[in-house]
């Protein structure tokens, strides 16, 4: 990549350097900023309905399992550590370490997802709280479900990079940038959960 960037007088690459930031990285930051607005809308929607009295059926805040969700939050938080260790290992040229930490990150993400599936199943089976129970339940499932979808997409991207690394024996410079972009996405998913855990789980109070 670097020899193309330095030798070829292509307009693309001059534009690429005009901000001093790699265009792909800048694009990822812009994408993540738009995602803030997306999740901001969903969190606002939850806050609008979570405490509103008068709905039939159970409210999500009445049945949260805080110890369980705390463990899930801890698992996702630690996956940010393994992600950044994968990135660090690649920058040192440690391909084995990169693969190990990438896999660990995907595994921790999968554990978080399994926890979410368990939580949803428990809410539906034990408490009969479905997507259609009331607007508060609907807002809860949409918000946490979309976050879970983002985690699942992240796990797929991590496993793809891990698979490429295993097949090729190492990650190239291009794939190195891909790892950095996937890392940014993964940390974003983590910081969104930091907000959800506090606002939705720890601060929510059912009406009455």
């Amino acid at each position, binding site marked *: 990549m670097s020899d193309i960037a330095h030798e070829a007088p292509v307009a693309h690459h001059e534009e690429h350097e005009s*901000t*001093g*930031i790699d265009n792909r990285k*800048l694009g990822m*930051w812009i994408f993540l*900023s738009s995602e*803030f*607005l997306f999740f*901001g*809308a969903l*969190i*606002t929607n939850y*806050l*609008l309905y979570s*405490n509103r009295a008068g709905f039939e059926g159970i409210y999500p805040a009445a049945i949260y399992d*805080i*110890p369980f969700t*705390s463990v899930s*939050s*801890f698992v996702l*938080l*630690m996956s*940010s*550590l393994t*992600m*950044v*260790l994968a990135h*660090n290992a690649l*920058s040192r040229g440690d391909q084995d370490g990169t693969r190990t930490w990438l896999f660990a990150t995907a595994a921790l993400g999968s554990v978080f997802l399994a926890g979410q599936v368990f939580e949803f199943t428990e809410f539906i089976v034990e408490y009969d709280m479905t997507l259609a129970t009331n607007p508060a339940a609907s807002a809860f499932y949409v918000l946490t479900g979309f976050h879970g979808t983002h985690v699942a997409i992240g796990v797929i991207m991590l496993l793809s990079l891990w698979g490429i690394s295993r097949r090729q024996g190492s990650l190239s*410079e291009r794939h190195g940038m891909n790892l950095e972009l996937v*890392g*940014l996405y993964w*940390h*974003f998913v*983590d*910081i969104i959960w*930091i*907000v959800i*855990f*506090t*606002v939705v789980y*720890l*601060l929510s*109070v059912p009406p009455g």
Partner: protein
Amino acid sequence: MSAEHHTHPTPAQYWKIAVVLAVLTAIEVAMFYIDRELGLGSLNALILITLALLKFVIVVGWYMHLRFEKPMLNRFFTAGFVLAISLYLVVLASLGVVVIRGG
């Protein structure tokens, strides 16, 4: 690849940051139960939001390396984030939603 990489934390520092994040999470959970017992109300909300914000800044700054990036990217992200939060706070306030409930 670039000069930025020289200033990135070491693996040992990443582990230390993880310990700080874990401790902050433990304090958050402890605050949830303390509030149940003592009914701290708005004070609990203030502490929890501050802790979440602290965790947020640590992950964005160190794990996402924003504090080691070019100032333009830092300003772009911070301004966008503050604007987004302001927008949603205005929406919540205009709809009369009580976000923080007293114990």
